[in-house]
């Protein structure tokens, strides 16, 4: 018994003697803890890959100038195993023992919510492109910035478009997951639906990750709505479509999903059943998006595809913009002091492969969503504030495809 | 039986049914203070069920049960233990992970009147009872390391440490050799001499004969005979149902 107590103390002490690495000169260290394993690993990898690619690109181009010295960026990435508690610990570790200078974010709103507290606690800026929930920015924190547009406006452009198509949907069903991000989306969407003069006849919330929609689908069928607006996570979107087909549920005109549609995995998993699905993205690899390091968004996408073997989506682009935010802010601040950099980030104003980056008062970027649709297995941008391509509308019933 | 004092235990119309099967069927009996009552009967006659109803492990489906004139048939087991009823189990139930001393100390701590509140004093008492039952040299042995006869002694010590007024013994002699049976009979007599009333369930007829003041015979849940051992054990009905011709 005595020995076991001793053993415990030793183990405890061992963990106490964590390593203390010293940062090399002329290097700015960026740190992030992302989901490389566990339930969120599927999307988490976008962030690791985008961070890597962008840091390498910036270093290859000679690094960044701070004052009159040239600095290289260095990237420390830890795997939080999709465990929120671990990710919080890892961010502290990054700051306090791995001595990183600045923080990049994890994926998903609930992680961003927890991890940004570390940034705020130690007053080191974190720029994250993985959480869109309004909750992250409503706490009055000063050190958290985000490159995903506000969740409440995700459906704004979609609803805008619905006003301009024929026939215009009159009745709408809203199906939303119950997590932080989707609750924000749903709240905003209800308002947009009302403003557009449409009628919300079915408003259903489901357990995030539950994957079981037959009851909701049967209710959609019996209420015979014109359009379905759906928000949740990717696998749930997948199940929703598959179950809609097997229960033969067809909204009269239209359905749209906040996530999934832009990703290649999603289209591949669903095959032909993915066709006609509408979705949205805050980013498309257009040549019109000019970038200091990559040239434009398309070259970014090509480089990414070449290096990692899969196509980037808006998660990746948003992650790249996070790294670039630091690059611009460091040069502008002319210092690596956290407070100086923080103020420089707040004043960010630059074009990037992702978008024009400019943070609002609360630290969040504002971007319109581009409405996209899968047409014959291809992702086609349809609408921003005007029609880009002709939508396949209304969506044909399952039996008539 | 002294006429002046009310019986220490009185059962009236005691009945237990399990899912329609009647295990004990309207049994009446009483126990006078300081008496030894032998309870015999074929397997499945309801003897253990009867003991379970007295100790509170089972609730009677019907009937009344009084201890020293007070109704106890709805009290939970621990309350009956506090009143002074202790029992042993047919399948012995020591606390296997504890030493013999701690096993018996539980009895001393929680027995009649709620037991001894101080753990140290309870262990002191437990030591005395282990001496009394002949286990004084095995205080620190773990209970599941004890062999058959020692287990029975432990079972006795646990019950005695509760300082009961009524002790229910369920087949404490099963599996003992004739000589060991004689030892246990002596032990039980010694306990009775301390003023304890005892109910004994047993198949060892020799022991029943030499111990009991009275014998009660159960068959199919009904009391078929009651009286002094000699008479009951010659009752033809008892011989037919239970004893067999060879032993009568």
């Amino acid at each position, binding site marked *: *018994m*005595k*020995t*076991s*107590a001793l*053993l415990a*103390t030793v*183990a*405890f002490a*061992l*963990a*106490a003697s*964590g390593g203390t690495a010293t940062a090399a000169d002329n290097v700015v260290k960026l740190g992030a803890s992302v989901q*490389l*394993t566990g339930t969120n690993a599927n999307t988490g990898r976008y962030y690791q890959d985008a961070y890597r690619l962008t840091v390498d690109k910036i270093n290859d181009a000679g690094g960044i100038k701070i004052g009159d010295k040239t600095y290289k960026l260095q990237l420390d990435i*830890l*795997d939080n*195993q999709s465990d*929120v*508690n*671990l990710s*919080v*610990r890892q961010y*502290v*570790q990054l700051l*306090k*023992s791995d001595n990183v200078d600045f923080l990049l974010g994890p994926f998903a709103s*609930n992680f961003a*919510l*927890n991890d940004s*507290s570390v940034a*705020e606690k130690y007053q080191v800026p974190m720029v994250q492109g993985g959480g869109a*929930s309004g909750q992250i920015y409503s*706490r009055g*924190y000063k050190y958290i910035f985000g490159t995903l547009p506000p969740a409440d406006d995700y459906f704004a452009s979609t609803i805008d478009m619905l006003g301009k198509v024929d026939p215009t949907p009159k009745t709408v069903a809203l199906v939303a997951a*119950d997590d*932080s991000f989707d*609750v924000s989306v749903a709240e905003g969407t209800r308002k947009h639906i009302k403003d557009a003069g449409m009628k919300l006849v079915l408003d259903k919330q489901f357990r995030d990750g539950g994957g079981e929609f037959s009851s909701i689908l049967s209710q959609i069928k019996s209420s015979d709505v014109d359009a379905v607006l759906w928000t949740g996570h990717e696998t749930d979107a997948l199940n929703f479509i598959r179950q809609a087909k097997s229960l033969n549920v067809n909204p009269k005109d239209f359905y749209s999903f906040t996530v999934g549609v832009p990703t290649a995995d999603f289209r591949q998993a669903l095959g032909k059943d993915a066709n006609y699905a509408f979705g949205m993205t805050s980013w498309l690899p257009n040549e019109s998006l000019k970038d200091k390091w990559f040239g434009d968004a398309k070259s970014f996408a090509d480089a990414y595809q070449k290096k990692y073997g899969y196509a980037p989506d808006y998660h990746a682009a948003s992650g790249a913009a996070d790294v670039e935010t630091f690059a611009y802010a460091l040069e502008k601040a002319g210092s690596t002091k956290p407070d100086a950099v923080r103020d420089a980030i707040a004043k960010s104003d630059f074009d990037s492969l992702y978008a024009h980056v400019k943070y609002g008062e609360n630290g969040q970027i504002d971007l319109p969503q581009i409405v996209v649709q899968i047409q014959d297995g291809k992702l086609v941008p349809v609408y921003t504030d005007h029609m880009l391509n002709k939508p396949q509308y209304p969506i044909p019933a399952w039996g008539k495809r | 039986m002294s006429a002046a004092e009310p019986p220490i235990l009185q059962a009236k119309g005691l009945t237990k049914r399990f899912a329609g099967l009647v295990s004990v069927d309207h049994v009446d009996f009483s126990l006078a203070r300081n008496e030894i009552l032998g309870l015999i009967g074929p397997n499945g006659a309801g003897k253990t069920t009867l003991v379970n109803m007295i*100790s509170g*492990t089972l609730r009677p489906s019907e009937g009344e049960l009084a201890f020293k004139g007070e109704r106890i048939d709805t009290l*939970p*087991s*621990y309350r*009956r*233990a*506090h009143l002074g009823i202790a029992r042993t*189990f047919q399948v012995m*139930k*020591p*606390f*296997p*992970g*504890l030493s013999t001393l701690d096993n018996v100390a*539980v*009895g001393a701590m*929680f*027995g*009649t009147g709620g037991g001894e509140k101080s*753990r140290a004093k*309870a262990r002191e008492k437990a030591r005395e009872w282990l001496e009394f039952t002949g286990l004084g040299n095995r205080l620190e042995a773990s209970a599941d390391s004890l062999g058959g006869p020692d287990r029975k002694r432990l079972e006795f010590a646990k019950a005695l440490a509760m300082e009961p007024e009524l002790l229910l013994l369920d087949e404490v002699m099963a599996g003992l050799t004739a000589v060991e049976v004689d030892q246990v009979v002596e032990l039980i007599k010694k306990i009775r001499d301390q003023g304890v009333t005892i109910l004994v369930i047993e198949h060892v007829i020799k022991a029943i004969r030499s111990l009991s003041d009275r014998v009660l015979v159960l068959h199919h849940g009904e009391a078929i005979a009651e009286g002094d051992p000699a008479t009951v054990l010659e009752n033809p009905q008892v011989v037919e149902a239970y004893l067999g011709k060879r032993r009568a």
Partner: protein
Amino acid sequence: MIRLAIILVGAAILACLPFFTGAVFMQFAINALILAVLTQSWNIIGGFTGYVSFGNSTFYGLGIYGTAVAMVKFSLPFAVGLGCGAVLAVLAALLIGIPILRLRGPYFAIATLGLAAATGALVSTIDLAGANTGLVLPLVRADTMFYELALGLLLVCTLTVLWIATSRFGAGLVAIREDEDAAATMGVNTTAYKVIALMMSAFFTAIAGGIYAYWISFIDPSSAFDPTLNVRMVIMAVFGGPGTVLGPLAGSFILSAVYEVLSSWISTAAALLFGIVIVLAVIFTPRGIADVLVGVRRHGWRYLTRNIRENRL
């Protein structure tokens, strides 16, 4: 007496640690201390009473939410919040305990598991508790305070367990664990004892939850009612030796350290290795570390293969 000395000296040494270590260690240590409190609290109901509870994460969640709702929605101070969480959890233990502690063995374990899942799911539908989106607590930069609080709680909890191990109450609990029917007929008020043990367990668990909530500053149902946390409590207690005073502490500190080392050194394979460690530990040391120390002293390293021989078919 020796145990009391070890506990007090250990606590005194640990209390000084914040002055010699950095923020990363604090971060790890607060987590480890909270886990140790959870393990030690579980030990009261699981180790001493023998009721393998998978419902302690319910009390943890209630402690977290009691504290958070009181602080966020009613602007009460932290201390009052802790009290709310504790009262909530203890009441829940009382109400839940009476029906559920009638079940035995695996049935109790499963009922508590179901309960934990149901409570988590229920809380995530309550608007006052922020539904499934969680609650944000005010941010405090005071890790040393949280560390000392958690350490203090662990000390009180461990002293309580020490008292249990040496008291009449504890003897009653152990009797229930060893044989409940026999305990009842020997005069132990089994229902009351079990429920009280569960309430004590719930109390410490809930306070730990409250400290965690304020420290981490953002909570949601999936982190507050995490069922794997309960599995971790069980593993740590069993690894250390359930039903002992110091075993659960040793178990939780060692496993916390192992997990931390694994996840910071070999990040991606950490969970895999952790799983393998559990499997091997169960095979070679089925009775916990406390028993390993005794066993190895007696039988040398053959103790390990001996365990297999005893437990295999």
